[in-house]
């Protein structure tokens, strides 16, 4: 029992870090579902793309000898902004090429295309990196600052990289909240989510708003990708799949289409997963350990969809289809 209590603070921190990352990725899923009622299955690759953008920039700086020369804050800022922008643009391109031609048709057709896009992008990343660097398992170069730790209590040391994740995510979530609720563009997005026909009658360019939604969602995913890379160091083209499914679960958990719901769902799922990873083996006397933590998210998804499909905070989908 003491062991359980002892590791609790660390588990909480892990859970919060994980939770923020899931929340950021979940936003991409939920925003797109809100305006199109469509699961952007390839969002997990947009997320991983962010990781790759980050690692490429860092590696290029490193080989130019500049990695230690520049102030870390600048490096981080560059990497984050680049990751967000490129992921956002990639998401927009994805929508234009693979989804827009299918709009108006049966929904499953678009979903199948999304699954295809997801697979294609995984191997496209692999192809690029194989040709460019002759390897597709990449590792983030270390930034010493990130590995320093801040002791919070006697038991608890928090690495700076965790603090980075938490702070950046909080800032971005606040910015997104402001954007969606207080700006004209954000309101346009909410209008299209609620009723695209009326929004279009009001003069809102629906297709452009959809493209913008993909950009913002993609940027959030890209940010999560960079943070993921900075925090866990290792990236490969296939490492988006599991976080992607989990983040989608988080979005459904919070209520699909519901932006605060995605944030809540991400946090809940992150904490649940951290707890499962650490405590499951203790609880089951070693029978089932941390290796089941991925399965955990799927079980949560299945249970949510069976018992409370509208999620914790309720779905936000289009109103009455007449």
């Amino acid at each position: 029992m003491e062991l359980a209590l002892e590791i609790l603070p660390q588990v909480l921190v892990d859970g919060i870090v994980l939770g923020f990352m899931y929340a950021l990725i979940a936003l991409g899923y939920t925003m797109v579902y809100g305006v199109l009622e469509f699961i952007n299955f390839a969002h997990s690759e947009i997320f991983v793309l962010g990781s790759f953008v980050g690692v490429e920039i860092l590696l290029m700086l490193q080989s130019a000898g500049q990695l230690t020369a520049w102030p870390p804050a600048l490096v981080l800022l560059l990497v984050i902004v680049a990751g967000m922008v490129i992921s956002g643009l990639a998401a927009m391109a994805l929508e234009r090429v693979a989804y827009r031609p299918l709009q108006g048709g049966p929904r499953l057709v678009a979903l199948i295309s999304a699954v295809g896009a997801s697979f294609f992008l995984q191997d496209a990343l692999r192809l690029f990196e194989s040709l460019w660097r002759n390897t597709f398992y990449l590792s983030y170069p270390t930034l010493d600052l990130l590995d320093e730790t801040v002791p919070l209590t006697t038991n608890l040391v928090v690495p700076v990289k965790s603090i980075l994740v938490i702070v950046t995510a909080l800032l971005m979530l606040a910015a997104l909240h402001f954007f969606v609720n207080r700006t004209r563009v954000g309101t346009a997005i909410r209008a299209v989510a609620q009723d695209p026909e009326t929004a279009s009658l009001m003069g809102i360019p629906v297709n452009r708003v959809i493209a913008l939604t993909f950009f913002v969602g993609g940027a959030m995913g890209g940010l999560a990708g960079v943070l993921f890379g900075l925090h866990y160091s290792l990236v490969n083209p296939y490492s988006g799949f599991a976080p992607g499914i989990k983040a989608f679960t988080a979005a459904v958990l919070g209520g699909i289409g519901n932006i605060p719901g995605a944030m809540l769902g991400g946090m809940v799922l992150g904490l649940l997963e951290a707890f499962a990873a650490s405590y499951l083996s203790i609880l089951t006397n070693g029978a089932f350990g941390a290796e089941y933590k991925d399965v955990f998210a799927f079980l949560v998804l299945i249970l949510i969809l069976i018992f409370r499909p509208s999620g914790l905070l309720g779905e936000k989908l289009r109103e009455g289809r007449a």
Partner: protein
Amino acid sequence: MSCAGTTFGLIAYIAVSWSLAFFFPQSVLAFLLFEASLLLIYYLPVHPKMKFYMGASVLLVLMPVLGFVNGYYLEVAVQIGIYVALALGLNIVVGFAGLLNLGFVAFYAIGAYLWAIFGSPQANAFLPGGFFPLSPAWFFVFLLLSVAVGALAGTLLGLPVLRLRGDYLAIVTLGFAEVVRALVNNLDKPINFTNGPQGIAPIEKPPLFFRPLLEFFGIQFEPAKLYPLYFYFLVLSLVMVIILVTRRLENSRIGRAWKAIREDEIAAAAMGVPVVRTKLFGFAVGASFASAVGVLFAAKQVFINPESFTFMESIGVLAMVILGGMGSVPGAILGATGVTILNLQLLKGLSLWLNSLRQSGAVLSIPFLGSYSLSQLPAQFEPAKYERMVFGLILILMMIFRPQGVLPPREDRKL
């Protein structure tokens, strides 16, 4: 009606392509041409009796002989057969009933592990008595058993999941498959059911029960030569049974009920179709096909591990059904054949070709860009590994340009 010219032309084609494949066993193209003869037999206007005889001779005589000469062809044929069976199973779920199952491979895994566990020493790890592996004759029992187990698994998955809307259904089936894979990967402790990532081996193969008969006729073959042929005929038989069952179901009220549900669930319900039960039955049938062929797969491979049952495999089978045409039996067969050949032969061929380029030391001169020594091609670039890209492209392009597939189900002009 049949034209004598067409018939003769077809026979000539079969003879020529077979000879090419026979005398040039290294030629992928010759083999492909020969396989294409089946497609031609199906589609050209030839008397049905002739079609039957031609098809039978290709499948039952010509192909095995070819395989005897070049064992690799037999291996490809068996692979194709397995995927045809899987595609037909998924075709029922996705094509007839319109339920997007993204985790179909889970049922395949269940069947494979079912035989793997009991047809190898694995079961001794949790069942006392040292009774395992069961004698090879049990293979056939397990083949039948897997149908029931698969149907049960399909029903269990379907029960909570079938009232979800289409896209959620898809994700949950994906989750289910991942759960099955995680279980298979990790159930080596506390009790060793599946031996985890190390997989299970050696798995019993079915008995050569006809060997005494062959020996009676003075035909002596080593098991090593006999087994590939044996598996070929086993797969062929299983595929024939599956096709028969599918056709029968399709042309009955169950098949119509599935299609009605796919087209408009509410109208179907208003017509008296018991929607939930019908969907469950579709899931169960599809799952049972996959499980049965899983047993075959385990026996053929002698060794299985969780790596054969990934999400990519599920999507591969989906790509086959979509490429061929959802809801169409010839479509599923064509799709499975096409995608398997694409992966097994074309991609691999590309890999080998690239490797030979690397080793040749040749140099590519591109105007204005200078020269590029082909030995510099990154070693990591292996076309054979890019199956996901192939599947992904197939899915996207088919959805945008031809969602009904290459051989969609046709209207019945001649009713």
